[in-house]
């Protein structure tokens, strides 16, 4: 294969990635050559600009044909586009948080790295979104992970930050090993790393031993990936890491890398194990056979997340558990495999992105001010800054899934999927019951904000970046709560995922 042959590919399909990559490199250099005392925030703004540019280019590709480069080692389909949009939007908002992040100690001289590591992490995520090849997926995953490890520990003189980084990387590497172990069997049974080839090969095989090994591989890959989703059983790192990492990083982990996790889960699970014949009955794909296991995992995730959150006194830990719980809700959609699977997951991730980032924006403001991350720091927020309190209220209500907010519509989608066709009453009931449990801790924060007297009545000053995030988040949560079809129709009309996912 010669240079010409390399040139014949539509590299333009990678424009968004190139933009991010280029700017990341640019930032590195700028950071290197800028005078030390100069404010690095400008780099952050450049990064934001880059993300916007990349969003624009992604939107430009919406509705286009499926482009594949180098036998799907890069693959641009509606699925990729849809989720890249989410990741870019999420990363963009996180960048706004990052720009206005002013921790007490530890981050003075690393602003530059702080910004472009976000970009590289985003790059990894985007690659994960649009690749049809195990190797590329793996590398993308690792790029995301390694960047996140460093980001988590970037407040190097802040013990909690270091510790969270340590815990993150150890668990992360173990999960990587497990995933790879599983993948290696997949490769071994198919002799290929290309998802579609794999699928084709597997649909041919009906050897019981292979089916058995594949199922084991499935379990390994899924459990390994559940690390990225922060889902049971690989969820326990989340609270510690969320608590220790700098708030923007926590936000990034809870939104972008969760999204990436679901992207890769869908890619691998659906395309490989959706077609491989299962042990019990060659007609039934492994995925269907594994549904009970998935249901179990999803249920456990929801219960653990919501129930343990009740006991939390630290706001970031509480949101860690809440994000575990939301992963559980999303897993319900994955488990039930309703025909509206992509709609429900995509929309829910969108809603979750908005409400969670908004919440983290407020958390960042409040915790920076108070210097600690106790829920009690929210006491009397309504006195100190009514607007902030009300906005937080709206976001919490959305997280709790009350009507009029995007969170509610997201849940509706999942429920329709769960009840349509073969209904999953138990799983749905667990979901709804745990949702009710979640009222307790979400409204616990409300109680602090509205009912309790303020510990210190000093007013909070809200940086520009936070304002932007809040406006987008709250407006989005309400808009998609009242007019969900703005999003749903966009997907319906432009991104026919089902059609070009398996081709």
């Amino acid at each position, binding site marked *: 294969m010669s240079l010409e042959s390399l040139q014949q590919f539509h590299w333009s399909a990678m424009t968004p990635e190139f933009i991010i990559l280029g700017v990341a490199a640019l930032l590195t250099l700028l950071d290197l050559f800028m005078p030390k005392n100069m404010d690095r925030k400008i780099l952050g703004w450049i990064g934001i600009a880059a993300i916007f540019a990349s969003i624009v280019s992604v939107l430009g590709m919406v509705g286009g044909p499926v482009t594949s480069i180098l036998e799907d080692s890069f693959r641009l389909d509606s699925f990729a586009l849809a989720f890249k949009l989410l990741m870019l939007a999420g990363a963009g908002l996180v960048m706004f948080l990052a720009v206005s992040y002013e921790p007490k100690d530890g981050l003075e001289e690393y602003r530059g790295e702080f910004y472009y590591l976000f970009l590289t992490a985003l790059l990894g995520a985007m690659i994960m979104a649009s690749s049809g090849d195990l190797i590329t997926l793996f590398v993308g995953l690792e790029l995301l992970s390694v960047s996140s490890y460093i980001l988590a520990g970037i407040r190097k003189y802040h013990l909690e930050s270091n510790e969270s980084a340590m815990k993150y990387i150890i668990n992360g590497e173990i999960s990587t090993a497990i995933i790879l172990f599983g993948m290696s069997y997949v490769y071994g049974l198919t002799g290929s790393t290309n998802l579609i080839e794999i699928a084709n090969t597997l649909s041919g095989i009906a050897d019981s031993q292979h089916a058995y090994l594949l199922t084991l591989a499935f379990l390994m890959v899924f459990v390994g990936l559940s690390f990225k989703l922060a889902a049971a059983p690989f969820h326990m790192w989340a609270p510690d890491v969320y608590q220790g990492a700098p708030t923007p990083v926590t936000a990034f982990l809870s939104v972008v890398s969760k999204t990436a996790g679901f992207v890769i889960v869908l890619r691998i699970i659906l395309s490989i194990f959706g077609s491989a014949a299962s042990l019990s009955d060659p007609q039934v794909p492994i995925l269907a056979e594994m549904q009970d296991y998935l249901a179990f995992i999803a249920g456990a995730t929801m219960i653990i997340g919501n129930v343990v959150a009740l006991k939390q006194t630290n706001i970031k830990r509480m949101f860690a558990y809440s994000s575990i719980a939301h992963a559980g809700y999303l897993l319900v959609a994955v488990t039930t495999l309703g025909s509206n699977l992509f709609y429900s997951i995509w929309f829910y991730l969108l809603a979750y992105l908005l409400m969670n980032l908004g919440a983290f924006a407020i958390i960042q403001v409040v915790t920076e001010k108070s210097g600690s991350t106790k829920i009690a720091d929210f006491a009397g927020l309504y006195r100190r800054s009514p607007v902030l309190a009300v906005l937080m209220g709206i976001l919490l209500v959305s997280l709790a899934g009350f009507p009029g907010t995007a969170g509610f519509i997201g849940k509706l989608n999942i429920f329709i999927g769960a009840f349509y066709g073969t209904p999953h009453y138990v799983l749905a009931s667990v979901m709804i019951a745990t949702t009710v449990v979640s009222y307790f801790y979400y409204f616990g924060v409300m109680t602090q904000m*509205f009912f309790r007297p303020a510990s210190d009545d000093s007013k909070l000053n809200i940086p520009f970046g936070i304002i932007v995030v809040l406006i987008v988040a709250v407006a989005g949560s309400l808009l998609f709560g009242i007019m969900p079809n703005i999003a749903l129709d966009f997907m319906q009309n432009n991104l026919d995922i089902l059609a070009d996912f398996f081709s």
Partner: protein
Amino acid sequence: MNLTSVLSILVFSPLLGIVVLAFMPKTAEKAIKAVGFLATLPALLLALAAYLHFQFGKDLADFSVSAKWIQFHGINVSEPYYSVYYELGLSGFQLLLVVLTAIVATLSAIAAAKFVKKEWKGYFMLFLLLEIGMLGVFTAENLILFFIFFEITLIPTFFLIGKWGYFEKEKAAYSFLIYNGLGSAILLIVIMILFAKTGSTNIDYLTQLMAKPDAPLSSDLKMGLFIGLLLAFGVKLPIFPLHSWMLKVHVQAPPSVVMIHSGILLKIGAYGLIRFGMGIFPEQFETLSVLIAVLGVVNLLYGAFLAFIQTDFKMVLAYSSISHMGIVLIGLAAMNEAGVQGAIFQVISHGLISALLFFLVGILYERTDTSLIGNLGGMAKGMPIAAGFLLAAGMASLGLPGMSGFVSEFMSFLGLFKEMPVIAAVGTLGIIMTAAYLLRAVLGITYGKAHREFTGVLDLKGVEFVPVLVLMLLIVVIGVFPSVLSAPLQTTLETIMLGIGG
């Protein structure tokens, strides 16, 4: 003329007040109260207009509005399935409830101006939001819309209780939240199953669909769904043993909120049971009617007996609410015109009576800082007019003829005696107990030796007369000319009876 926009305006008119309030300074007490009160008026006027519209023999269907709203993609079924419409409408039954809501809301606003001592701005904004929710619940024409409004009532109520209530307000607020949360959760499951199975949540559509023999739901599933509904609305009503939250709320919440809560929010349960339970699942209702009758009698007696030994007047009223909701169940279980109409009457009349009673309790508490029967007594000396109204309200509540309470009680029992005389006979024991506990409480407060020296003006004065007189008037009018209610109900009843096939 085109009236389709009327309902939307009616439901969302309080929004105007919210917006105005949002831009008002926290401290402008008078102005805030004024706005809060005025913002309830448009809804009231429109509701009354609608009632007249009906009384002049026009068709209520003129009001119904329907517009495409949400389309859930991904389920490969063609239009109009799996889409939710924005549909509001009025039947006679709904009309009455809307009027009731509007009236009580306005009066509660007056009461709030009287009783709320702090942060009027927040209070009235939440209060108006709550009113939107209630009006929406009664006008919504499909289940999801209903559910949305239903939940919208939850959050303001939580805050109204938790912030403006009495000593144990937060506990009350939480138990309110958790119980109603569970109830609405069950409701949501039921709704989503119906939606996923039938592709629509339009109530009338579902009603017709279920009536068909080839309904897409197995009878077991139907039964399951109906029991779900029973639980969901049983929490709201409340049905024993799902009632403990409501006691806390009645005792801890501020009077103006309790007026709304016991006057209207509890009625959502009854409304749901009648409209969805009976409307969509008539056969299941039929099957369980005996159970429901028993539940009703249990509620009736349980509430009555417990009210008989309460020391706090608020608790007496709380338990009496449970007891009176029992009558609603009794009426429904009869499943004949008399019973159902009686149940509906009870819904309306209890709304008025309890609102009146709780307003008076508020007055009493404000004047004397207690609602313990033991600490009161002989109030008829210090506040004769209030005491008189309290007595009258009590009489209305124990079903004195000539007041609304009697008509509903009478019809409910009339209905049940036809179907299950024995159970009904047991139930009549409740009539005696009601008299016993209400007289015990009311006389304990108003009659006997006065425990205190009365200084200054204790009795009703000024604006306080408005709610008292209006409510009393309505109670008597309904009691004397029940046809003001029964007329609008006939069509609703016919449809329900059609569903029951009785």
